[in-house]
């Protein structure tokens, strides 16, 4: 009997998801070292409760949700839930057209890092990870309307930060 969801299969699928889980965790934590720790704990948590994963649910959404929950727990235990945000940035040097793809890429990532957490996770799930709105809303435990408005505000803010000459 080899059904689709044997633990062996799921382990393989999880391994294939690792690059995306790490990427999402980085967007969440904004720190690659924290991100890998969070992914590791999320994997352990997932393996321990694999029976709770519904076969018809997307494994990526389920894992993103666990990653996020691990991070929320971690912030709670650090006692700095809420304002982990580094405040207004010294964005003095924004404005010139990017020199090359690399600068472009870093500008996008840096603009993302300046979004409030709620908007950043919404943008990250939909634009970076490619989840449908409905899946992203489930990961974040919010109604789809809330997801949509966070996404719209996040994208508007990104647009403003990335528009050339609009820095002042």
């Amino acid at each position: 009997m080899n059904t689709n969801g044997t633990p062996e299969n799921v382990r393989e699928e999880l391994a294939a998801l690792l690059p995306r889980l790490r990427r999402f965790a980085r967007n969440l934590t904004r720190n690659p070292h924290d991100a890998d720790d969070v992914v590791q704990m999320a994997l352990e948590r997932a393996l321990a409760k694999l029976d709770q994963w519904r076969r018809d649910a997307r494994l990526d959404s389920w894992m993103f949700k666990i990653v996020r929950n691990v991070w929320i727990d971690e912030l709670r235990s650090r006692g700095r839930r809420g304002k982990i945000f580094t405040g207004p940035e010294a964005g003095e040097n924004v404005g010139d057209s990017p020199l090359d793809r690399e600068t472009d890429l870093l500008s996008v990532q840096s603009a993302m890092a300046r979004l409030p957490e709620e908007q950043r996770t919404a943008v990250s799930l939909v634009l970076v990870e490619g989840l449908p709105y409905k899946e992203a809303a489930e990961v974040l435990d919010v109604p789809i309307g809330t997801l949509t408005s966070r996404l719209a505000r996040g994208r508007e803010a990104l647009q403003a930060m990335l528009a050339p000459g609009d820095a002042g």
Partner: protein
Amino acid sequence: MSIADETLMAYADGELDASARTAVEAAMRADPEIARRIAQYREQQEKVRAAYEPELAERVPDRLLAVLRARGSAGRSRRPQSVGSRWRYALAASVVVAIGLAIFAWQRPVLMQERGGALVASGELANGLSDSLSGDPSAGDVRIRVSFLAKSGEYCRTFTLRESAGLACRRGDRWLIHDLTQLAEAGQQPDAGASQSGGYRTASSLLPPAILSAVQAQIVGDPLDRAGEQSARGAGWRPR
């Protein structure tokens, strides 16, 4: 007829049902501004997606794969004591020195030297870091890529040097090499996703993901533009 931005965004993301889609398409034909805004959403989507694509090509650390290989659902792997334990940074530093010495120790003229447990730029590399602006054609093999202000308060710059790429930060009157990786090695990593770029072989392609993520972890605000680099260089790369 005016259509809410959220609806246009949902249209661009393929999230509308058939009837709402038809309505947006009609409005789009009637009003070029609506078409422009939808195009803007799509362009942004592509830009953001592209900015995060190189990360998928990074090698996954063994400790994460080990969790999945461990038998028994409790997972008997080395569990992180807490998120972000400090020792890893120290370890990383010594690895950089080891790699740097392995790659560059036998080269003449000397481009990097070990000073008190850290790897320091010298010769042509130090000159390039101090004098060149990003993207400038430079004498020799050193190319400066991106400059930025780091969370440590130091100015840092990425560079490529023959087959290697690295990240150096200015401390006092020295450039400390924080990260170093071989371009050829990075190019051999499996290329995940739909990337057409085919690795990182040439100076015109992206820096290796390891270096980019090191930058991402360190950067405050945006990379310096040309004027920012000139003023930082004028101040001897000392933070304001």
